[in-house]
């Protein structure tokens, strides 16, 4: 799994070259809204952002809804229904630049746990009237349905990465996001290794940096919410998690949470 390292070449239309702010739309699919809220969470920078873009569609923030096309679309959530699959195709047609934000949009999210399992069985247990439920058997990332220009990983995404990504798109400079492990961030911020010093199971060594090692800084193991790093050696970490006392089920659960689809793919590819 390689991460996009630089912004796609953006050819803005003449009106934007003349100084008109690009229009921004924020879309939601199967997700918890946490990633969109990261945008509203950029308190100090929101005014600067409002100066640079015109927010055309962002139901979480404003009732104004301007019809497309849009210059930039941020997409949160995964595709779990036929209706959503159609909707994302329309959004792609309406958007010059389509950027996915968060583990649901980039990897299918927690809801990808349903993949390969008995979804009709789940619906009959969860819903009083399963006959009203129209859902796909899978939860899949946006990129499985339409071409994606850029992606931001995480559950939720990191505010700093979101701002850097928006700055790079608006100012058309290269965007570089780390593709190395979370360990690099632990060491840079002087967080003691929870695995070596406390024996706490951690996905940090196979997970892509970007969160500034949030969980280990609170003495917890990494849950892998940024997905696989550039060359994840899942097999070697699995062996070490076993040495730390996790059984096969526990290791499976750890690997199959926020990025269930992504780590499974990394295992299949046997990438080392």
């Amino acid at each position: 799994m390689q991460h996009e390292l630089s912004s796609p070449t953006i050819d803005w239309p003449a009106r934007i070259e003349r100084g008109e702010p690009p229009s921004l739309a924020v879309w939601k699919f199967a997700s918890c809204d946490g990633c969109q809220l990261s945008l509203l969470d950029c308190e100090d920078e929101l005014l600067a952002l409002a100066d640079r873009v015109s927010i055309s569609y962002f139901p979480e923030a404003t009732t104004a809804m301007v019809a497309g096309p849009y210059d930039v679309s941020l997409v949160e959530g995964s595709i779990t229904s036929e209706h959503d699959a159609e909707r994302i195709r329309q959004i792609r047609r309406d958007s010059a630049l389509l950027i996915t934000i968060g583990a649901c949009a980039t990897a299918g999210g927690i809801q990808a746990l349903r993949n390969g399992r008995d979804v009709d069985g789940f619906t009959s247990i969860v819903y009083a009237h399963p006959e009203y439920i129209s859902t796909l058997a899978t939860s899949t990332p946006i990129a499985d349905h339409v071409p994606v220009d850029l992606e931001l990983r995480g559950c939720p995404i990191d505010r700093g990465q979101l701002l850097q990504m928006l700055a790079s798109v608006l100012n058309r400079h290269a965007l570089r996001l780390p593709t190395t492990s979370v360990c690099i961030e632990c060491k840079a911020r002087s967080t003691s290794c929870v695995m070596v010093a406390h024996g706490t199971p951690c996905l940090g060594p196979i997970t892509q940096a970007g969160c500034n090692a949030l969980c280990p800084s609170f003495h917890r193991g990494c849950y892998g919410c940024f997905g696989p790093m550039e060359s994840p050696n899942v097999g070697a970490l699995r062996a070490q998690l076993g040495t730390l006392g996790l059984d096969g089920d526990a290791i499976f659960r750890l690997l199959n949470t926020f990025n269930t689809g992504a780590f499974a793919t990394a295992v299949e590819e046997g990438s080392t």
Partner: protein
Amino acid sequence: MDLVQTDVATDRWVLRGLDRLIEALVGRFDEVIGPVVLDGVVRLQPIESADDLPIGIADEQAPATYRLRRDASALRFSYGLGPDSLKSLVHPPRSPVWTMRRRDGSLVVDAAHHPTHERAVIGARACDIDGLRVLERTQTGGDHADPAFRANRNGLFVVAVDCTHPAPTCFCANTGTGPSARDGHDIAMTELETRDGAVYVLRAGSERGRALIDELQLERASSELIRRAAREPGVAARGQPRSLPANAPLIAKLAEHPQWDDVAERCLACGNCTAVCPTCFCTDMEDVVSLDGDGATRVRVWDTCFSMEFSRVGPAPIRGSVTERYRQWLSHKLGTWHDQFGESGCVGCGRCITWCPVGIDLTAEIAALAAPAEAAR
């Protein structure tokens, strides 16, 4: 460093407890850094008094394992190395390079100021002080000396402590870098346990170290204490089970050895080893641009040869596999470092063994490579 050659060998002073020394350092320097127990790990942190230092702490270190436990002693340095070498003090994980602003249609660049603070570190170990010297050669030895490194190093007053309790992961006796501090320090101490608690036998390593000792008006150490202090390093060295073979530098000739694939099966390419290594120095540049596009900051950040992107040249990484990346690290550290800097890049601290999450041990890897290295001679 302005070494005092004349009295280094003979003059010894004695200090009972560390209060007076640390008070003097705190009074004199902008910041005093020393070992502190944090989250079950001995880390280097700012300290304000001797009470901040650990007391009666022992460590257990093995590949991928670090644990602290209490012991009954009154000693403050009765444990091996923690994860922090002196590297962060002179070559920090993030250091600003410049900021740029758009002003009246042109770009104005302000170079970052070099640090001017005067800092003291207490409890520095011999291998780490040697690591400072190795790092100094890499950062300031060529045509493009790093001014930030130089400023950080010059502003650093080093109080060393001889290692009396090295971890089994240490092999400084083998690399010739410890356990006793030989140069690069301003003051060095040997800690001894006596009936009256911990006692420190001090020696000066520089003019300014000597000046501080004079200012403290310390007593001369008794010949009995001097004898005891002189014995300690030998005892510490004998307990070290690990070593590098004499032919380790030949490693660079073994690019095709099957052991590289073997270690790549186990290696996570996580980069913990390079982060904790006192001599790994590679960096990347990170640019942060403001939303309005009118300002940018460039920061130099630690990087690692275990990163695939680190080796990207043109369209693709030149070291795409972990085999190539582990080989690059160890062959440079123990082999081509000699070609580049005239010495080994390893000072025998053993940190990469303890802090590797899967316990890869470079001494075991080189042992597996060693027999054919013999043949390549």
